[in-house]
């Protein structure tokens, strides 16, 4: 958390002085998470990447006239990226219609703080899955395909897709939450 504050301050200083190093640091720190964040609302990874790239370029070109402030950098970036996704979206994703943005933001902030860790954890677990399950996870989560489309592509029934996906998610949730519990224990023990 503290490390991020230092980096944010550096990014703001460099970018406000139009130093290309600032863009590099911004990219390294924020590109991937912002793409994921944008993709939450549009379910099109390629478009999400385009939106974040355009946003960074606009920021560099001075099209966004606002001094960058370290304390609010993360939320500033998030809000601007979100607005850009809204403008580009043709059909609104279920998450934007039924889930409050605040809730997504809260989960996202937590995710962003330990992204490397969560990604490694999840991918390691996913590696133990059968090929078919892995294909389904990628098709639904990364390519944003419908169950029907996935079933057609893989030549299985829709209910198979549903069940395999359900099983995979159950296992991954268990893995995530087991981890959280042990982290909590470590935190608890070191504190006392």
């Amino acid at each position, binding site marked *: 958390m503290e490390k991020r504050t230092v980096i944010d301050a550096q990014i703001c200083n460099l970018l406000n002085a139009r130093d290309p190093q600032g863009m590099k640091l911004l990219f390294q720190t924020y590109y*991937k998470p912002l793409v994921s964040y944008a993709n939450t609302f549009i379910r099109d990874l390629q478009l999400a*990447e385009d939106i974040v*790239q355009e946003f960074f370029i606009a920021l*560099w070109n001075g099209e966004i006239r606002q001094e960058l402030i370290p304390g609010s950098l993360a939320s500033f970036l998030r809000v601007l990226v979100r607005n850009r996704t809204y403008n580009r979206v043709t059909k609104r994703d279920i998450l934007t219609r039924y889930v409050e943005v605040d809730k997504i933001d809260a989960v996202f902030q937590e995710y962003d703080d330990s992204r490397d860790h969560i990604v490694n954890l*999840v991918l390691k677990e996913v590696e133990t899955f059968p090929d078919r399950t892995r294909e389904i996870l990628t098709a639904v*989560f990364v390519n944003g395909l*419908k169950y029907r489309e996935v079933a057609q592509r893989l030549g299985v029934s829709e209910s198979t897709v549903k069940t395999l996906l*359900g099983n995979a*998610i159950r296992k991954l949730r*268990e893995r995530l939450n087991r981890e959280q519990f042990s982290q909590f224990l470590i935190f608890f023990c070191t504190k006392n």
Partner: protein
Amino acid sequence: MEKRLLNQEMEERLLAFFNGELDEAANEEIRQWADSDPKNRAAYDAFLKDYLRLRWAQEDRHIQVTRAWQRISATTRGKRQRRIYFTVAASIAILAVAAAVFLFIPKKANQPLAQSSIQPVKPQATLVLSTGKKIDLNQAHLPILEQDGSTVNIDTLSGLRYDTAAPQTTQLIYNKIIVPRGGEYFLTLADGTQIWLDAESTLEYPVQFNTTERRVKLQGKAYFSVTRDTTKPFLVEVDKFSIRVHGTEFNVNAHDAQRIETVLVNGSIGFKANAKSAEQLLQPHQLAMVNSLTGQSEIRDVNILPHVAWKNRNIVFANERLDNIMEEIARWYDVHVFFQNEELKALRFDCNMPRYSDIRELFFFMEQTSNARFYINDRTVIISKK
């Protein structure tokens, strides 16, 4: 540890809900279920949190960081160099702008998007028969009989169509179709292969494919939907650059021999940068950028839409440089383009509009979103700073 808050069925339902699989009534049911009991709400929130984290973690490694950084660093690098070079070039630039203003700016300079006679792209082409006879396809409507007995059908809507059930002869005769600037044309070859030819492009092809391969020659840009025939490979040649396919869809933009772009939509194709190069394979949703003069090539994953949208009668640019956009516009609308400021060439735009739009609509849209101004004077477009 964690108490099971959801049974398997409810978990699958929530998963389907977040994946957008349910209909409106079912969505509403989920909402009511979550609102009806704080315990349900807690379970719902916990599930949402895990769902999002898993989705993000899954897609993380699919994000193409290298490509993204290439694009962004190109912008930051560009800016730095321009600043140094700007002071040196300033005096020359003023001179050039002054000359340009004098030469080109129309009298009513405050009406940048004045009436114009510039027409959007439309089907037009010249057909060269095997005898060398030229036929204006906008004038001709009757079927033509070729030397080998094949019929060529001309239709104003569906373009040119070669007889698939033609007499089998061993004679290999060629036809050529020439599409001018401001034109486009669609044709179906004797093997059923469909080809969309863009403005300022030429295609030469046999009237009947009666040898062991199907070989066509292209200049400019075309979209191919090749009929599958594993016994007769289909070859597209652009000077020394060549593509070998069996059955597939792809787009070739060969307006610039040093930057031949091939985008594969589906199937698989192999290409040779030039006669001396080894064949390389291209996967769907990949772009091969080839310099056929040096034989250098580069393959990367792309969003294919901007490359193939023209064939579906759309103009799509995704974060494209203005000079590249104007190069296409010049061909489609048959205009000349003049940049008063070099730096305007590096502006980038997104665009998605019908191909047959008025050119002024496009410029209006670009003026609204940048500091560029577009003047039309006869067949010349002058781009200046606001």
